[in-house]
Structure formats: structure tokens, C-alpha cells
């Protein structure tokens, strides 16, 4: 456990307390800008914003249970050409941090001059469901409190319900919510020397290890519970989609819109293979295939797209579930990609987002490995 500081919470107002913390980061010039989720005017959505003037931190709310976009995509967009010489603090959830690690390894993002601030993720709803919560008068603080009371929120996205990574990884600073007595204070833990330096510069009460003592226990209980749900859910998915017949039934609603790929943090190619003319053929070829098969589903190559996408991204799938949010026809793509990804990750003993040093399995090789693949 790194250096701990405590953000004071007055009268149970968690968001106000955190707001002072975010402001402090900008006011002390610990960072020159923050990438931080803020509530949009109207209140029905919370989106990532870039802010450099603390005055413009109007309604920051990184704990709001909604994730419209996986921010790893945004950081890739921002840093891929060249990172800024100025410091940017990025407030991220676990799936965003893990996706960012993968993108860095894929040379699609840079961590230079980024200060990664992770927040414990208590789960997120779909954008539509979040708006309904707001209309029903449910606040972020209600959400955090009911989580603290151990209630599993059934309105969370399915990807979140099976997520066994609630805690941030690779963050310089971690805002700890799980297992903390938030009415008293919010612990912030520095996990890197840079994080520790930032904490020192802020006007925060130094904390002691005992103030995050409950965290490990609460985390491991949550992870165990989520892992059990994950295994059950994915086992059921495997039964449902097993074999060509079932797989095609599962993908019956697909319209080749490729939204799943557009929002996927791992689908980074500027020109997708499926935008290339490689499989563009003359009409007569289609008629030839039709004669062979009797009927040809149009648009063609639905399954080819999904299977190919799996060969390209599933190894790095962090299970953020953005694909399923973007699917117009409710195909359980998040579960399918997660299930396939876990199979792949087991073969290569790889966990996406686990380590910056660990090589991407498909970018390297070992001699004498994988018996049975090439020679019987």
C-alpha cells in the first residue's frame, strides 16, 4: 500500500468533497488539465470533459454510474500523434485503464505526461437507463450509498455485473470507495512516486494504512462474487451460442453496422480490413455463391466480420461491454467477445491490462511452444 491521504467529507456530501480534490489538482498545478467526467447541462448524461481552469469544474462526477465511451479511446486520440508537454490528469475507471495499457502496448497511446487517477468502479448503467435514474430523482450519492450497503444494483450493465476488476490498475492515484467509511472521509492512495508527490502538494489530511484496512477484504469479497456471476453467465452464453446453428441464431439480429467495432477501445485500425476492397467482388460471384448455397444472406459476410474481429481484438478484450451498448439489436456481443477472449487469454496466459511489460501474445513467439498446433 502506498502513501494514503484522506479527503474530508462534510455532512455526507461525497461529491462536494471530491470536487475540492479535483479543484486542488488544478489549483496546485499538479496537472495542467483534467480529463474528467462531468454532468451535461440538463443532467441526463455524464461525459468526459477536458478542463484546465478549476473555475470550469462545474459538475464533475466520475462516480456517476454511467460510461458513455471507454476513455482509453479518447486518450489514444489525444496522445497518439504526440503527447502534450503539459501534464494531463485522466480520471478513469478500471476498464478504461486496462484498455489504455493495451493501447499503449499496441503503440496507439502514450502515457507520457499523463497522470492516471483511478476511481473504484461501482458499476455503470446504459446511457438510457442512467437518464431514467436521474428522472426518478436518484443521485450519484444514493448510488454510492446503496453500493456501500451491499446492494447489487440490477440496473447495472451486464458487462459490469460480471466485472471482476472493480479496482483501478496502473494508476498514479487511486480514489478508494470500496470498503471505506465514506461518511468520514475518502481515502486516496498514491501508487507511484509521482502520485505520492502530488498528494504531498495537496492540502489533505495524511491517512494511515488502517484507514484503508477494510479495502482488501471488501474488494476480495466483491471480486469473488463477481467472478462467480461471470463464470455462470459465460457458461450459459457458451451453451446458448455453441455450434454453427446456435451461433447464427445468436447473431440473427446483426445488420453489419459494425457499431461494436466503432466503440471498441481495442479496434484501433484507421482503416478496418472490412473497409478495404479485398473482398469486393463482381455481382456474378455473388450469384455463383447463391447457386452453391441455394440462398445467400445479405449483406454477406456477417459472421466473417465477427470471427475476424475476434482474431484481431479478443486477446486484448478488457470486457468493458461498450460493444453491447452500441448494438442496435441487443446481440449479447460483450459476453461473446469476453468468452472468446478468456479462452484465448488462457491459451497464452495473458491478462489484458495486467502489465505494461508483458508482450502482446500475437506480436511475439517462443520456440518449441504450443505442442499440437503445427505437428501432430
Amino acid at each position: 500500500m502506498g502513501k494514503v491521504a484522506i479527503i474530508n467529507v462534510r455532512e455526507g456530501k461525497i461529491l462536494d468533497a471530491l470536487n475540492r480534490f479535483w479543484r486542488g489538482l488544478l489549483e496546485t498545478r499538479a496537472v495542467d488539465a483534467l480529463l474528467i467526467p462531468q454532468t451535461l447541462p440538463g443532467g441526463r448524461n455524464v461525459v468526459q470533459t477536458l478542463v484546465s481552469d478549476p473555475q470550469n469544474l462545474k459538475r464533475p462526477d466520475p462516480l456517476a454510474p454511467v460510461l458513455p465511451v471507454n476513455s482509453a479511446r479518447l486518450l489514444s486520440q489525444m496522445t497518439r500523434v504526440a503527447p502534450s508537454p503539459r501534464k494531463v490528469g485522466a480520471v478513469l475507471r478500471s476498464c478504461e485503464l486496462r484498455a489504455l495499457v493495451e493501447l499503449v502496448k499496441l503503440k496507439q497511446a502514450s502515457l507520457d505526461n499523463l497522470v492516471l487517477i483511478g476511481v473504484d468502479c461501482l458499476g455503470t448503467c446504459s446511457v438510457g437507463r442512467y437518464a431514467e435514474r436521474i428522472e426518478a430523482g436518484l443521485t450519484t450519492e444514493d448510488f454510492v450509498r446503496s453500493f456501500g450497503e451491499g446492494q447489487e444494483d440490477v440496473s447495472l450493465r451486464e458487462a459490469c455485473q460480471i466485472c471482476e476488476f472493480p479496482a483501478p490498475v496502473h494508476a498514479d492515484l487511486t480514489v478508494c470507495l470500496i470498503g471505506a467509511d465514506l461518511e468520514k472521509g475518502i481515502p486516496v492512495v498514491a501508487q507511484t512516486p509521482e502520485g505520492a508527490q502530488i498528494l504531498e502538494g495537496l492540502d489533505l489530511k495524511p491517512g494511515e494504512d488502517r484507514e484503508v484496512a477494510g479495502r482488501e477484504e471488501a474488494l476480495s469479497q466483491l471480486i469473488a462474487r463477481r467472478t462467480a456471476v461471470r463464470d455462470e453467465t459465460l457458461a450459459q452464453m457458451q451453451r446458448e451460442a455453441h455450434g454453427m446453428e446456435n451461433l447464427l441464431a445468436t447473431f440473427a439480429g446483426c445488420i453489419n453496422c459494425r457499431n461494436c467495432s466503432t466503440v471498441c477501445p481495442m479496434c484501433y485500425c484507421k482503416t478496418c480490413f472490412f473497409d478495404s476492397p479485398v473482398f469486393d467482388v463482381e455481382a456474378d460471384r455473388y450469384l455463383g455463391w447463391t447457386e452453391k448455397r441455394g440462398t445467400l444472406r445479405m449483406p454477406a459476410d456477417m459472421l466473417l466480420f465477427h470471427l475476424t474481429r475476434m482474431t484481431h481484438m479478443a486477446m486484448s478484450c478488457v470486457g468493458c461491454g461498450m460493444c453491447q451498448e452500441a448494438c442496435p439489436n441487443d446481440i449479447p456481443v460483450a459476453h461473446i467477445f469476453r468468452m472468446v477472449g478468456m479462452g484465448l487469454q488462457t491459451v497464452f496466459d495473458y491478462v489484458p491490462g495486467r502489465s505494461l511489460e508483458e508482450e502482446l501474445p500475437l506480436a511475439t513467439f517462443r520456440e518449441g511452444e504450443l505442442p499440437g498446433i503445427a505437428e501432430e
Partner: protein
Amino acid sequence: MRGQKREESLLPDEAFEPVIVGFLCQWCTYTAADLAGTTRTQYPPNIRPIKTMCSGSVDPVYVLRALLGGADGVLIGGCRPGDCHYVSGNLKARRRIAALKSILKTLGLEEDRVWLRWISAAEGKKFADTVSEFTQKLKKMGPNPIKRHWSI
């Protein structure tokens, strides 16, 4: 019933001649195929060879395209480990094919229809034997059931 007849025609039988799409590295397996030809080594005519620069240049999309298009099997032929013209393309291919097979297996599709084999330019006989063995295996497996589905 017509549907029934269609089903029956997909059962393994003597008359079934599988179609194998071969992605063969030009530095080894493709040359081995040539050698098999020039030395008049007999092997089944079921393979449709495609010359590639390296087994490492075969993106799984082409393997999938062949399988979904109705090929009964796909053979990827590369150089023996250590002999790759591009140093390590074949060993990267091994990872890629292992990944593809894992995906097919998870989804309950037949990963045994994809073979990766190391066949050097000197191994005309091994090429012929591999094609014979694969053809026999596919005859036992029967036609690729993907052919039955039009809604792919």
C-alpha cells in the same frame, strides 16, 4: 422431402471429395508441392494451393473466408522452425493459428478443419503424405457443415 435429401447428401460417404484450400509458403511448402509434382509422387487432387510469401502473412481472415465459403479444410504450410526466410514468420503464424483454433473451439466450430504443418522445400513426400492424411481425415469428418447454412 427435399430438405431431408439435402441432409443425407452431407453424410460421410465414399463419393465425398473434400476441398482443401492450401495457403503455402513460397519458400518451402509451395516448393515441396512442386517437388512432389516433378518427382511424380501421387497425392489426392483435393487441395487448391495458394502461394503466399510466408505462413506468417496468412491473416486468419483468409482461413475463415475459406471455411465460411464452404472449404472442408484449410492447410497452412510453413517452413520448419528456424528455417523461416523472414526469420520468425512461421512461429508467429503458429501463435495466430493457435488463437484461431481457440476461438473456433470456444464457439463450438470444428477447429480440426484447420491444419498448420511445417514442410520444407525438400519434403515433397511429406507434402504428398500430409495432403493424403488430411484428405482421409476430412472424408471421415464429412463435408463442412457450414455449407448447409446460408445465413452466415
